[in-house]
């Protein structure tokens, strides 16, 4: 009994230390565009811009799992942002940053991270986001010969067993828009979701539309994009930066310039153009 109470006491003590109520730190303190001197930003590594993404890096956002080749949507966007900031491709370095690590507290070893990360207010408490560079719809993927593939509306999918990847906003979107009768299964990686679909452990995948198109074109040709949804809300992806980074304003300004000049549209057209073709689900 004595030992038990000591353990409890220790736990309680830890909680007194740890569970203290939080004081909200002020959010969104981005440096003005004034300090964005081309090629001379206060980057992690002097003189170079360090960009991060997860590994493996999937098409159509990256090609051949190699962010440095400039191929794929996010690779192209990153190099375009870098160019706007005064860093030619030779002055851009890539680093691998897992999704969880990208928002863990502590010093970051990248200047910004592009990893199809949706901007949401709760997340903005932990990190900075740039202005959005893409608005993604959600899509439903199912095996061609399945019942789910015949769905013409979101309510047709209510009783389907859904699967999503962890960390994606697809889960929230699926729960809010489809309102499934049982909760979706949540997998570690995109590959695991696909395996579960092939195995018949789930009947449909909910995923960002560009990913859905890649999956059906390359990874699971026996599957089809049933349709897309969420056109109204449209998830906005932004570059992720350390909380209160001095670079946030600069990166946002660069993205806005790319948008105004039509360059961003061109990149989007080149890598994500198929996204327009999928039928809409309501």
């Amino acid at each position, binding site marked *: 009994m004595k030992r038990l109470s000591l353990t409890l006491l220790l736990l309680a003590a830890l909680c007194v230390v740890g569970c203290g109520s*939080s004081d909200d730190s002020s959010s969104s303190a981005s440096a003005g565009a004034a300090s964005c001197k081309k090629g001379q930003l206060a980057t992690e590594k002097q003189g170079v811009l360090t960009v991060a993404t997860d590994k493996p890096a999937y098409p159509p956002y990256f090609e051949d799992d190699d962010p440095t080749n400039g191929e794929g949507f996010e690779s192209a966007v990153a190099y375009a942002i870098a160019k706007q900031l005064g860093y030619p491709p030779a002055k851009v370095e890539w680093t691998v940053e897992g999704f969880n690590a990208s928002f*863990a*507290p502590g010093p970051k070893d990248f200047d910004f991270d592009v990893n199809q990360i949706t901007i949401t207010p709760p997340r903005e*408490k932990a990190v900075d986001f740039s202005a959005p560079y893409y608005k993604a719809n959600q899509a439903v993927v199912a095996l061609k010969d399945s019942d789910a593939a015949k769905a013409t509306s979101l309510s047709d999918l209510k009783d389907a067993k859904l699967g999503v990847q*962890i*960390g994606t906003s697809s889960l929230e979107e699926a729960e809010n828009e489809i309102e499934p009768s049982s909760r979706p299964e949540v*997998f570690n990686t995109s590959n*695991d979701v696909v395996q579960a679909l092939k*195995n018949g452990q*789930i009947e449909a995948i909910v995923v960002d539309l560009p990913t859905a198109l890649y999956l059906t074109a390359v990874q699971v040709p026996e599957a089809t994009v049933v349709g897309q949804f969420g056109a109204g809300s449209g998830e906005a992806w932004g570059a992720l930066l350390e909380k209160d980074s001095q670079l946030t304003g600069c990166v946002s300004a660069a993205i806005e310039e790319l948008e105004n000049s039509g360059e961003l549209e061109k990149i989007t057209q080149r890598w994500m153009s198929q996204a327009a073709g999928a039928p809409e689900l309501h």
Partner: protein
Amino acid sequence: MPSDRRLEREAAKRRRHRRGQAIAALSSLIVLGGLATLILTSPGWPEVRETFFNWDVFKDSFPDVAKAFWLDVKIFIVAELAILVVGLVVALVRIARSPAMFPLRLLSVVYVDVFRGIPTILLVFLIGFGVPALRLEGVPSDPIVLGGIALALSYSAYVAEVYRAGINSVHRGQRDAALAVGLTETQALRHVILPQAVRRVAPPLLNDFVALQKDVALISILGPLEAFREAQIIEAQLFNFTPLVAAALLYLAVTIPTARIVDRLGGPEGAVR
């Protein structure tokens, strides 16, 4: 009326006891206080408190994580029952002496070697995704069932060895005596050897169950929304790690009581046999 010497001896004993307590209290204060100071004054502490020990996030996420934890509890209870049976069967096969049992004995050795030798997470993954891919009629494809089977297979291999050690630790004379009074081999095993063996290995057996109660979280890789997965989902939504701390507390809530039971079983009265 106690003698003076006795009174003096008792007084000295009390003084020693009080001194011991004072030293224990002081050293606890220094060590624990030092650790707390080190953590609380570290430059990253405010940020860590905000992202790992955020009370508001804890309050909001705890009910969801706790609800998901119920799935963990159900899985490990069923798995533990299966493990007790499978482990015993494997151990009995392995100690059987009959020559006819040789192929089964060989299988049991291979089973223990293989399933104890593969990382549990890998086993969960291979069985969870591999078995349904075979597309066999009547074989379950539910990830919860498959994950539970994977855990049961892995832990049964450990528990079989624990049983075997227990059975081997019962003195040979016990068996001989049982046979001498007219029991058959099976009866001797059932009524004389096993009861002693099982009582002896109860602490290491429960020790394996403590490990299993944490490893249930591995099933999350197959998709089911158990506590760790639920916590990860909220973590990714909020970019805040507090839900994972909430999940950790829930696992502790079952593993610490089990550990206390282990302590009691292995306590002073069991120490000398």
